[in-house]
Protein backbone atom coordinates (compact mmCIF):
# COMPACT_ATOMS: atom_id res chain seq x y z
CA UNK A 1 0.00 0.00 0.00
CA UNK A 2 1.21 3.47 -0.84
CA UNK A 3 -0.81 5.13 1.89
CA UNK A 4 -2.05 3.21 4.89
CA UNK A 5 -4.09 5.09 7.48
CA UNK A 6 -5.33 3.05 10.41
CA UNK A 7 -7.40 4.13 13.36
CA UNK A 8 -6.38 7.76 13.47
CA UNK A 9 -7.89 10.12 16.04
CA UNK A 10 -7.36 13.83 15.54
CA UNK A 11 -8.24 16.76 17.76
CA UNK A 12 -8.69 20.48 17.26
CA UNK A 13 -7.57 21.65 20.67
CA UNK A 14 -9.80 19.84 23.12
CA UNK A 15 -12.48 18.80 20.66
CA UNK A 16 -12.09 15.51 18.91
CA UNK A 17 -12.78 15.48 15.16
CA UNK A 18 -11.70 12.01 14.11
CA UNK A 19 -12.59 8.90 16.10
CA UNK A 20 -10.86 6.21 14.08
CA UNK A 21 -10.45 6.64 10.35
CA UNK A 22 -9.09 3.78 8.24
CA UNK A 23 -8.10 4.43 4.68
CA UNK A 24 -5.76 2.91 2.14
CA UNK A 25 -4.55 4.02 -1.27
CA UNK A 26 -2.62 1.59 -3.45
CA UNK A 27 -0.04 2.41 -6.10
CA UNK A 28 -1.81 3.79 -9.19
CA UNK A 29 -5.19 3.73 -7.48
CA UNK A 30 -7.78 6.51 -7.36
CA UNK A 31 -9.62 6.52 -4.05
CA UNK A 32 -12.64 8.72 -3.38
CA UNK A 33 -13.02 9.98 0.17
CA UNK A 34 -16.68 10.75 0.73
CA UNK A 35 -19.06 11.79 3.46
CA UNK A 36 -21.44 14.59 4.36
CA UNK A 37 -20.24 18.03 5.39
CA UNK A 38 -18.45 18.15 8.73
CA UNK A 39 -17.81 14.41 8.91
CA UNK A 40 -14.05 14.74 8.84
CA UNK A 41 -12.87 14.52 5.23
CA UNK A 42 -10.69 17.60 5.33
CA UNK A 43 -9.45 16.75 8.82
CA UNK A 44 -8.39 13.34 7.53
CA UNK A 45 -6.41 15.01 4.78
CA UNK A 46 -4.89 17.51 7.20
CA UNK A 47 -3.86 14.58 9.37
CA UNK A 48 -2.23 12.76 6.47
CA UNK A 49 -0.26 15.90 5.56
CA UNK A 50 0.53 16.38 9.25
CA UNK A 51 -0.89 19.88 9.32
CA UNK A 52 -3.01 18.50 12.17
CA UNK A 53 -1.08 15.46 13.35
CA UNK A 54 -3.29 12.71 14.79
CA UNK A 55 -2.96 11.84 18.48
CA UNK A 56 -3.67 8.17 17.99
CA UNK A 57 -3.45 5.69 15.19
CA UNK A 58 -0.88 5.19 12.50
CA UNK A 59 -0.24 6.72 9.10
CA UNK A 60 2.28 4.98 6.89
CA UNK A 61 3.38 6.27 3.52
CA UNK A 62 5.15 3.75 1.31
CA UNK A 63 5.63 1.56 4.37
CA UNK A 64 7.19 4.33 6.41
CA UNK A 65 5.50 5.60 9.58
CA UNK A 66 5.13 9.38 9.29
CA UNK A 67 4.79 9.95 13.04
CA UNK A 68 6.92 12.85 14.24
CA UNK A 69 7.61 14.25 10.77
CA UNK A 70 7.08 17.94 10.04
CA UNK A 71 4.63 18.89 7.29
CA UNK A 72 7.34 19.74 4.76
CA UNK A 73 9.02 16.36 5.33
CA UNK A 74 5.82 14.51 4.54
CA UNK A 75 5.45 16.59 1.40
CA UNK A 76 8.99 15.61 0.40
CA UNK A 77 8.20 11.93 0.89
CA UNK A 78 5.87 12.40 -2.06
CA UNK A 79 2.49 13.70 -0.96
CA UNK A 80 1.23 16.57 -3.10
CA UNK A 81 -1.72 18.41 -1.60
CA UNK A 82 -4.18 20.54 -3.54
CA UNK A 83 -5.85 22.23 -0.59
CA UNK A 84 -9.50 23.17 -0.36
CA UNK A 85 -10.21 26.67 -1.59
CA UNK A 86 -7.43 26.92 -4.20
CA UNK A 87 -4.69 28.29 -2.04
CA UNK A 88 -2.12 29.72 -4.42
CA UNK A 89 0.51 32.29 -3.52
CA UNK A 90 -1.47 35.33 -4.67
CA UNK A 91 1.42 37.71 -5.16
CA UNK A 92 3.65 35.42 -7.12
CA UNK A 93 3.22 34.96 -10.85
CA UNK A 94 1.85 31.71 -12.27
CA UNK A 95 5.34 30.66 -13.31
CA UNK A 96 6.82 31.53 -9.90
CA UNK A 97 4.07 29.58 -8.12
CA UNK A 98 5.00 26.54 -10.18
CA UNK A 99 8.80 26.69 -10.14
CA UNK A 100 9.03 27.50 -6.44
CA UNK A 101 7.52 24.09 -5.70
CA UNK A 102 9.40 22.11 -8.34
CA UNK A 103 11.23 18.93 -7.51
CA UNK A 104 12.88 16.74 -10.15
CA UNK A 105 10.74 14.16 -11.91
CA UNK A 106 8.55 13.68 -14.95
CA UNK A 107 6.43 16.76 -14.24
CA UNK A 108 8.06 19.89 -15.59
CA UNK A 109 6.79 23.37 -16.30
CA UNK A 110 6.36 22.43 -19.95
CA UNK A 111 4.25 19.36 -19.12
CA UNK A 112 2.05 21.31 -16.70
CA UNK A 113 1.49 23.88 -19.40
CA UNK A 114 0.49 21.13 -21.82
CA UNK A 115 -1.96 19.72 -19.27
CA UNK A 116 -3.38 23.18 -18.55
CA UNK A 117 -2.86 25.39 -21.63
CA UNK A 118 -4.56 28.26 -19.81
CA UNK A 119 -1.64 28.42 -17.37
CA UNK A 120 0.77 28.85 -20.27
CA UNK A 121 -1.27 31.79 -21.52
CA UNK A 122 -1.18 33.40 -18.07
CA UNK A 123 2.43 32.53 -17.23
CA UNK A 124 3.51 36.02 -16.12
CA UNK A 125 0.26 37.06 -14.49
CA UNK A 126 -0.17 37.18 -10.73
CA UNK A 127 -2.06 34.28 -9.23
CA UNK A 128 -4.42 36.79 -7.59
CA UNK A 129 -5.59 37.98 -11.03
CA UNK A 130 -6.65 34.50 -12.18
CA UNK A 131 -10.23 33.27 -12.25
CA UNK A 132 -11.28 30.68 -9.69
CA UNK A 133 -10.93 27.84 -12.19
CA UNK A 134 -7.51 28.96 -13.30
CA UNK A 135 -6.38 29.23 -9.68
CA UNK A 136 -7.56 25.67 -9.17
CA UNK A 137 -5.56 24.54 -12.18
CA UNK A 138 -2.57 26.37 -10.76
CA UNK A 139 -3.00 24.68 -7.38
CA UNK A 140 -3.11 21.27 -9.10
CA UNK A 141 -0.15 22.20 -11.27
CA UNK A 142 1.82 23.34 -8.25
CA UNK A 143 1.19 20.05 -6.45
CA UNK A 144 2.18 18.09 -9.58
CA UNK A 145 5.41 20.10 -9.91
CA UNK A 146 6.58 18.47 -6.67
CA UNK A 147 6.30 15.16 -8.55
CA UNK A 148 4.22 13.53 -5.83
CA UNK A 149 3.69 9.81 -5.60
CA UNK A 150 0.27 10.54 -4.15
CA UNK A 151 -1.82 13.52 -5.24
CA UNK A 152 -4.49 14.66 -2.79
CA UNK A 153 -7.33 16.75 -4.20
CA UNK A 154 -9.57 18.39 -1.61
CA UNK A 155 -12.77 19.71 -3.19
CA UNK A 156 -10.99 20.51 -6.42
CA UNK A 157 -14.12 21.45 -8.35
CA UNK A 158 -16.14 23.17 -5.66
CA UNK A 159 -17.76 26.41 -6.75
CA UNK A 160 -16.48 26.31 -10.31
CA UNK A 161 -18.37 26.83 -13.56
CA UNK A 162 -19.46 23.60 -15.31
CA UNK A 163 -17.11 24.12 -18.26
CA UNK A 164 -14.11 24.48 -15.96
CA UNK A 165 -15.17 21.48 -13.87
CA UNK A 166 -15.34 19.47 -17.04
CA UNK A 167 -11.75 20.50 -17.87
CA UNK A 168 -10.51 19.62 -14.40
CA UNK A 169 -12.19 16.22 -14.39
CA UNK A 170 -10.70 15.57 -17.81
CA UNK A 171 -7.24 16.33 -16.44
CA UNK A 172 -7.86 14.06 -13.44
CA UNK A 173 -8.77 11.24 -15.85
CA UNK A 174 -5.58 11.93 -17.79
CA UNK A 175 -3.57 11.69 -14.58
CA UNK A 176 -5.27 8.43 -13.67
CA UNK A 177 -4.53 6.99 -17.10
CA UNK A 178 -0.87 7.78 -16.52
CA UNK A 179 -0.91 5.77 -13.31
CA UNK A 180 -0.91 8.64 -10.82
CA UNK A 181 -2.17 7.61 -7.38
CA UNK A 182 -4.87 10.04 -6.27
CA UNK A 183 -6.94 10.57 -3.14
CA UNK A 184 -9.87 12.75 -4.06
CA UNK A 185 -12.59 14.46 -2.06
CA UNK A 186 -15.53 15.77 -4.04
CA UNK A 187 -19.26 16.21 -3.74
CA UNK A 188 -20.28 15.53 -7.34
CA UNK A 189 -20.92 11.77 -7.40
CA UNK A 190 -21.72 11.70 -11.10
CA UNK A 191 -18.21 12.71 -11.99
CA UNK A 192 -16.36 11.23 -9.05
CA UNK A 193 -17.62 7.62 -9.13
CA UNK A 194 -16.62 6.75 -12.70
CA UNK A 195 -13.03 7.83 -11.95
CA UNK A 196 -12.71 6.15 -8.56
CA UNK A 197 -11.34 2.63 -8.14
CA UNK A 198 -12.55 2.50 -4.56
CA UNK A 199 -14.54 4.64 -2.16
CA UNK A 200 -14.20 5.27 1.54
CA UNK A 201 -17.08 6.93 3.34
CA UNK A 202 -16.55 8.74 6.62
CA UNK A 203 -19.30 9.39 9.09
CA UNK A 204 -18.90 11.29 12.33
CA UNK A 205 -15.14 10.95 12.26
CA UNK A 206 -15.13 7.17 11.60
CA UNK A 207 -14.73 5.12 8.48
CA UNK A 208 -18.25 3.82 7.86
CA UNK A 209 -17.92 2.02 4.55
CA UNK A 210 -15.26 1.00 2.05
CA UNK A 211 -15.78 -0.66 -1.28
CA UNK A 212 -15.84 -0.36 -5.05
CA UNK A 213 -18.19 2.24 -6.58
CA UNK A 214 -20.44 -0.47 -8.06
CA UNK A 215 -21.16 -1.78 -4.57
CA UNK A 216 -22.45 1.57 -3.43
CA UNK A 217 -26.12 0.78 -3.02
CA UNK A 218 -28.94 3.29 -2.80
CA UNK A 219 -29.36 2.35 0.83
CA UNK A 220 -25.76 3.24 1.68
CA UNK A 221 -26.04 6.47 -0.30
CA UNK A 222 -29.16 7.42 1.61
CA UNK A 223 -27.77 6.55 4.97
CA UNK A 224 -24.21 7.90 4.65
CA UNK A 225 -24.24 10.50 1.91
CA UNK A 226 -27.80 11.77 1.61
CA UNK A 227 -28.71 15.20 2.75
Amino acid at each position, binding site marked *: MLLDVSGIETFYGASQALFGVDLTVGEGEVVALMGRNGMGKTTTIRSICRLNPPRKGRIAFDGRDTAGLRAFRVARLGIGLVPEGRRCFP*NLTVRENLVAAARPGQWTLARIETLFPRLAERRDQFASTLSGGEQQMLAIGRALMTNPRLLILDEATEGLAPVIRHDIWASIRTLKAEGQSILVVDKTMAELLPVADRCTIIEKGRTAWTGVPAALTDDIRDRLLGV
Partner: protein
Amino acid sequence: MSRETLISLVIVLALLAIPLWATAVGETFYITLATRMAILALAAVGLNIALGLGGLVSFGHAAFFGIGGYAAGILASHAFNMEPLPFGLPGTNAMPVIWATAIVASGLVALAIGAISLRTAGVYFIMITLAFAQMIFYFAISWPAYGGEDGLSIFVRNQFPGVNTLDGLTFFFVCFGLLMAGLLLFSLLRDSRFGAALQAARQNERRLATVGIAPYRIRLAAFVISAMVTGVAGALFADLNRFVSPSMLSWHMSGELIVLIILGGVGRLAGPVAGAMLYVAFEYFLGGITERWQLFLGLLLLAVVLFARGGVVGLLAGKARHG
Protein backbone atom coordinates in the same frame (compact mmCIF):
# COMPACT_ATOMS: atom_id res chain seq x y z
CA MET B 1 10.53 48.63 -19.78
CA SER B 2 8.04 48.66 -16.93
CA ARG B 3 7.23 51.82 -15.06
CA GLU B 4 9.04 50.58 -11.97
CA THR B 5 12.22 49.82 -13.93
CA LEU B 6 12.12 53.33 -15.35
CA ILE B 7 11.61 54.92 -11.92
CA SER B 8 14.43 52.81 -10.48
CA LEU B 9 16.73 53.95 -13.26
CA VAL B 10 15.82 57.61 -12.66
CA ILE B 11 16.47 57.29 -8.91
CA VAL B 12 19.85 55.64 -9.43
CA LEU B 13 20.87 58.17 -12.09
CA ALA B 14 19.82 61.01 -9.78
CA LEU B 15 22.19 59.65 -7.13
CA LEU B 16 24.94 59.39 -9.73
CA ALA B 17 24.30 62.96 -10.88
CA ILE B 18 24.86 64.56 -7.46
CA PRO B 19 28.65 64.11 -7.22
CA LEU B 20 29.12 64.88 -10.94
CA TRP B 21 27.25 68.12 -10.50
CA ALA B 22 29.14 68.83 -7.26
CA THR B 23 32.46 68.37 -9.03
CA ALA B 24 31.38 70.63 -11.87
CA VAL B 25 30.48 73.49 -9.55
CA GLY B 26 33.34 72.80 -7.14
CA GLU B 27 31.15 72.00 -4.10
CA THR B 28 33.07 68.87 -3.08
CA PHE B 29 31.18 68.51 0.19
CA TYR B 30 28.17 67.19 -1.70
CA ILE B 31 30.31 64.31 -2.96
CA THR B 32 30.65 63.13 0.64
CA LEU B 33 26.91 63.50 1.08
CA ALA B 34 26.22 61.42 -2.03
CA THR B 35 28.70 58.77 -0.86
CA ARG B 36 26.85 58.60 2.44
CA MET B 37 23.60 58.14 0.54
CA ALA B 38 25.10 55.31 -1.55
CA ILE B 39 26.49 53.50 1.50
CA LEU B 40 23.31 53.76 3.58
CA ALA B 41 21.35 52.68 0.51
CA LEU B 42 23.53 49.57 0.19
CA ALA B 43 23.02 48.73 3.87
CA ALA B 44 19.27 49.11 3.39
CA VAL B 45 19.33 47.02 0.17
CA GLY B 46 20.74 44.27 2.38
CA LEU B 47 18.00 44.68 4.96
CA ASN B 48 15.42 44.84 2.16
CA ILE B 49 16.20 41.22 1.26
CA ALA B 50 15.12 40.08 4.74
CA LEU B 51 12.48 42.73 5.38
CA GLY B 52 11.03 43.36 1.94
CA LEU B 53 11.15 39.92 0.38
CA GLY B 54 11.06 37.71 3.46
CA GLY B 55 8.90 39.88 5.72
CA LEU B 56 11.49 39.48 8.47
CA VAL B 57 11.48 42.69 10.48
CA SER B 58 15.04 42.56 11.78
CA PHE B 59 15.63 45.24 14.37
CA GLY B 60 19.25 44.17 14.71
CA HIS B 61 20.84 44.85 11.35
CA ALA B 62 23.09 47.49 12.92
CA ALA B 63 25.02 44.52 14.32
CA PHE B 64 26.05 43.50 10.80
CA PHE B 65 26.64 47.09 9.74
CA GLY B 66 28.91 47.57 12.75
CA ILE B 67 30.71 44.26 12.30
CA GLY B 68 31.54 45.31 8.73
CA GLY B 69 32.76 48.64 10.09
CA TYR B 70 34.92 47.01 12.74
CA ALA B 71 36.33 44.58 10.16
CA ALA B 72 37.58 47.59 8.21
CA GLY B 73 38.77 49.45 11.32
CA ILE B 74 40.57 46.53 12.93
CA LEU B 75 42.32 45.32 9.78
CA ALA B 76 43.37 48.87 8.88
CA SER B 77 44.66 49.70 12.35
CA HIS B 78 46.77 46.54 12.41
CA ALA B 79 48.16 47.35 8.99
CA PHE B 80 48.88 50.94 10.04
CA ASN B 81 50.64 49.93 13.25
CA MET B 82 52.35 46.98 11.56
CA GLU B 83 51.04 44.68 14.31
CA PRO B 84 50.04 41.17 13.35
CA LEU B 85 46.53 39.97 14.16
CA PRO B 86 46.00 36.82 16.23
CA PHE B 87 47.45 33.69 14.57
CA GLY B 88 50.14 35.88 13.01
CA LEU B 89 47.90 37.10 10.19
CA PRO B 90 48.85 40.52 8.87
CA GLY B 91 46.48 43.51 8.89
CA THR B 92 45.57 44.94 5.53
CA ASN B 93 44.45 48.15 3.91
CA ALA B 94 43.24 46.49 0.71
CA MET B 95 39.52 47.06 0.35
CA PRO B 96 38.74 43.75 -1.42
CA VAL B 97 40.25 41.79 1.48
CA ILE B 98 38.46 43.98 4.01
CA TRP B 99 35.14 43.51 2.20
CA ALA B 100 35.62 39.76 2.09
CA THR B 101 36.35 39.78 5.82
CA ALA B 102 33.29 41.93 6.49
CA ILE B 103 31.11 39.57 4.43
CA VAL B 104 32.38 36.43 6.13
CA ALA B 105 32.23 37.92 9.65
CA SER B 106 28.72 39.35 9.32
CA GLY B 107 27.56 36.18 7.56
CA LEU B 108 28.78 33.95 10.37
CA VAL B 109 27.26 36.13 13.07
CA ALA B 110 23.99 36.27 11.11
CA LEU B 111 23.98 32.48 10.85
CA ALA B 112 24.16 32.20 14.64
CA ILE B 113 21.66 35.00 15.33
CA GLY B 114 19.30 33.83 12.59
CA ALA B 115 19.41 30.18 13.64
CA ILE B 116 18.00 31.20 17.02
CA SER B 117 15.86 34.22 16.12
CA LEU B 118 14.06 32.61 13.19
CA ARG B 119 12.47 30.09 15.53
CA THR B 120 10.30 32.98 16.63
CA ALA B 121 8.07 35.25 14.58
CA GLY B 122 6.40 38.63 14.69
CA VAL B 123 7.11 40.86 17.65
CA TYR B 124 9.32 38.23 19.29
CA PHE B 125 11.55 38.15 16.24
CA ILE B 126 11.90 41.95 16.38
CA MET B 127 12.83 41.83 20.05
CA ILE B 128 15.26 38.94 19.83
CA THR B 129 17.18 40.48 16.92
CA LEU B 130 17.32 43.72 18.91
CA ALA B 131 18.62 41.84 21.93
CA PHE B 132 21.42 40.21 19.94
CA ALA B 133 22.42 43.54 18.41
CA GLN B 134 22.50 45.15 21.86
CA MET B 135 24.75 42.35 23.11
CA ILE B 136 27.25 43.08 20.36
CA PHE B 137 26.90 46.83 21.00
CA TYR B 138 27.79 46.48 24.68
CA PHE B 139 30.57 44.07 23.84
CA ALA B 140 32.13 46.73 21.56
CA ILE B 141 31.79 49.37 24.27
CA SER B 142 33.50 47.23 26.87
CA TRP B 143 36.29 45.93 24.66
CA PRO B 144 39.23 48.30 25.20
CA ALA B 145 41.57 46.84 22.57
CA TYR B 146 39.84 48.71 19.73
CA GLY B 147 38.90 51.95 21.43
CA GLY B 148 35.88 50.77 23.42
CA GLU B 149 33.36 53.57 23.73
CA ASP B 150 35.68 56.09 22.02
CA GLY B 151 35.83 54.15 18.80
CA LEU B 152 38.67 53.52 16.45
CA SER B 153 40.15 55.90 13.88
CA ILE B 154 41.34 54.86 10.43
CA PHE B 155 44.15 57.30 9.70
CA VAL B 156 44.41 56.77 5.97
CA ARG B 157 41.49 55.55 3.87
CA ASN B 158 41.98 51.97 2.70
CA GLN B 159 43.13 51.24 -0.83
CA PHE B 160 41.40 49.71 -3.82
CA PRO B 161 43.80 48.31 -6.44
CA GLY B 162 44.31 50.65 -9.36
CA VAL B 163 42.42 53.69 -8.09
CA ASN B 164 43.10 56.54 -5.70
CA THR B 165 40.47 56.18 -2.98
CA LEU B 166 41.67 59.34 -1.24
CA ASP B 167 39.93 61.25 -4.00
CA GLY B 168 36.32 61.79 -2.93
CA LEU B 169 34.80 61.26 -6.35
CA THR B 170 36.75 58.04 -6.91
CA PHE B 171 35.63 56.68 -3.53
CA PHE B 172 32.07 57.58 -4.46
CA PHE B 173 32.37 55.49 -7.61
CA VAL B 174 33.70 52.55 -5.58
CA CYS B 175 30.66 52.80 -3.26
CA PHE B 176 28.28 53.36 -6.16
CA GLY B 177 29.71 50.31 -7.92
CA LEU B 178 29.06 48.16 -4.87
CA LEU B 179 25.56 49.60 -4.56
CA MET B 180 24.88 48.57 -8.16
CA ALA B 181 26.20 45.09 -7.38
CA GLY B 182 23.90 44.99 -4.34
CA LEU B 183 20.89 46.03 -6.44
CA LEU B 184 21.76 43.41 -9.06
CA LEU B 185 21.94 40.75 -6.34
CA PHE B 186 18.58 41.90 -4.96
CA SER B 187 16.85 41.71 -8.34
CA LEU B 188 18.41 38.34 -9.17
CA LEU B 189 17.31 36.95 -5.81
CA ARG B 190 13.83 38.38 -6.14
CA ASP B 191 13.25 36.80 -9.54
CA SER B 192 14.87 33.47 -8.71
CA ARG B 193 13.23 30.27 -7.50
CA PHE B 194 14.71 30.98 -4.08
CA GLY B 195 13.12 34.43 -4.13
CA ALA B 196 9.73 32.99 -5.03
CA ALA B 197 9.95 30.54 -2.14
CA LEU B 198 11.04 33.33 0.23
CA GLN B 199 8.08 35.48 -0.73
CA ALA B 200 5.81 32.46 -0.51
CA ALA B 201 7.10 31.89 3.04
CA ARG B 202 6.10 35.45 3.88
CA GLN B 203 2.64 35.02 2.41
CA ASN B 204 1.82 31.64 3.84
CA GLU B 205 4.23 29.40 5.61
CA ARG B 206 1.93 26.37 5.85
CA ARG B 207 1.10 26.44 2.19
CA LEU B 208 4.84 26.42 1.48
CA ALA B 209 5.34 23.44 3.78
CA THR B 210 2.68 21.46 1.88
CA VAL B 211 4.77 21.72 -1.29
CA GLY B 212 7.73 20.33 0.62
CA ILE B 213 9.83 23.43 1.31
CA ALA B 214 11.02 24.18 4.85
CA PRO B 215 10.32 27.88 5.48
CA TYR B 216 12.98 28.05 8.21
CA ARG B 217 15.91 27.22 5.93
CA ILE B 218 14.80 29.60 3.21
CA ARG B 219 14.53 32.38 5.75
CA LEU B 220 17.86 31.58 7.36
CA ALA B 221 19.61 31.73 3.97
CA ALA B 222 17.90 35.04 3.21
CA PHE B 223 18.82 36.44 6.63
CA VAL B 224 22.50 35.55 6.15
CA ILE B 225 22.68 37.00 2.63
CA SER B 226 20.93 40.12 3.87
CA ALA B 227 23.46 40.52 6.71
CA MET B 228 26.41 40.07 4.33
CA VAL B 229 25.28 42.94 2.12
CA THR B 230 24.74 45.18 5.14
CA GLY B 231 28.18 44.14 6.42
CA VAL B 232 29.95 45.33 3.26
CA ALA B 233 28.11 48.65 3.55
CA GLY B 234 29.43 48.91 7.12
CA ALA B 235 33.01 48.51 5.89
CA LEU B 236 32.47 51.31 3.37
CA PHE B 237 30.84 53.50 6.03
CA ALA B 238 33.91 53.13 8.26
CA ASP B 239 36.12 54.10 5.33
CA LEU B 240 33.99 57.12 4.51
CA ASN B 241 34.17 58.48 8.06
CA ARG B 242 37.65 57.04 8.68
CA PHE B 243 36.22 56.15 12.04
CA VAL B 244 34.37 53.24 13.64
CA SER B 245 32.54 53.41 16.93
CA PRO B 246 29.90 51.44 18.79
CA SER B 247 27.31 53.94 17.49
CA MET B 248 27.37 51.98 14.22
CA LEU B 249 26.07 49.03 16.24
CA SER B 250 23.40 50.90 18.16
CA TRP B 251 19.69 50.28 17.83
CA HIS B 252 19.30 53.78 16.38
CA MET B 253 21.20 52.53 13.38
CA SER B 254 18.90 49.48 13.04
CA GLY B 255 15.91 51.79 13.23
CA GLU B 256 17.43 54.14 10.68
CA LEU B 257 17.78 51.30 8.16
CA ILE B 258 14.14 50.29 8.64
CA VAL B 259 13.07 53.93 8.24
CA LEU B 260 15.06 54.20 4.98
CA ILE B 261 13.23 51.23 3.56
CA ILE B 262 9.79 52.40 4.65
CA LEU B 263 10.42 55.88 3.20
CA GLY B 264 11.63 54.44 -0.09
CA GLY B 265 9.27 51.49 -0.47
CA VAL B 266 9.35 48.09 1.24
CA GLY B 267 10.48 45.28 -1.03
CA ARG B 268 11.06 47.59 -4.00
CA LEU B 269 14.32 47.46 -5.90
CA ALA B 270 15.13 51.16 -5.71
CA GLY B 271 13.26 51.75 -2.44
CA PRO B 272 16.38 51.81 -0.24
CA VAL B 273 18.15 54.16 -2.65
CA ALA B 274 15.26 56.64 -2.69
CA GLY B 275 14.92 56.31 1.09
CA ALA B 276 18.62 56.91 1.73
CA MET B 277 18.68 59.95 -0.56
CA LEU B 278 15.67 61.43 1.15
CA TYR B 279 16.98 60.65 4.63
CA VAL B 280 20.45 62.10 4.10
CA ALA B 281 19.01 65.17 2.40
CA PHE B 282 16.68 65.70 5.38
CA GLU B 283 19.50 65.14 7.82
CA TYR B 284 21.68 67.69 6.06
CA PHE B 285 19.32 70.43 4.99
CA LEU B 286 16.90 70.37 7.93
CA GLY B 287 19.74 69.48 10.30
CA GLY B 288 21.37 72.73 9.26
CA ILE B 289 18.28 74.70 10.25
CA THR B 290 17.27 72.96 13.45
CA GLU B 291 18.75 70.37 15.76
CA ARG B 292 15.30 68.82 15.99
CA TRP B 293 15.17 67.78 12.35
CA GLN B 294 14.09 64.31 13.34
CA LEU B 295 10.72 65.72 14.36
CA PHE B 296 10.12 66.55 10.71
CA LEU B 297 11.47 63.20 9.62
CA GLY B 298 8.97 61.65 12.01
CA LEU B 299 6.13 63.63 10.44
CA LEU B 300 7.25 62.56 6.99
CA LEU B 301 7.40 58.94 8.08
CA LEU B 302 3.92 59.26 9.56
CA ALA B 303 2.65 60.69 6.28
CA VAL B 304 4.24 57.86 4.30
CA VAL B 305 2.81 55.18 6.58
CA LEU B 306 -0.66 56.74 6.58
CA PHE B 307 -1.03 57.95 3.02
CA ALA B 308 1.66 56.39 0.84
CA ARG B 309 2.25 52.86 2.04
CA GLY B 310 4.48 52.08 -0.92
CA GLY B 311 6.92 54.86 -0.02
CA VAL B 312 8.57 57.03 -2.67
CA VAL B 313 8.75 54.23 -5.22
CA GLY B 314 5.15 53.28 -4.54
CA LEU B 315 4.10 56.89 -5.07
CA LEU B 316 5.94 57.17 -8.38
CA ALA B 317 5.62 53.68 -9.81
CA GLY B 318 2.29 52.49 -8.42
CA LYS B 319 1.49 49.41 -6.42
CA ALA B 320 4.10 46.79 -5.68
CA ARG B 321 4.60 43.95 -8.09
CA HIS B 322 4.91 41.70 -5.08
CA GLY B 323 2.54 42.94 -2.39
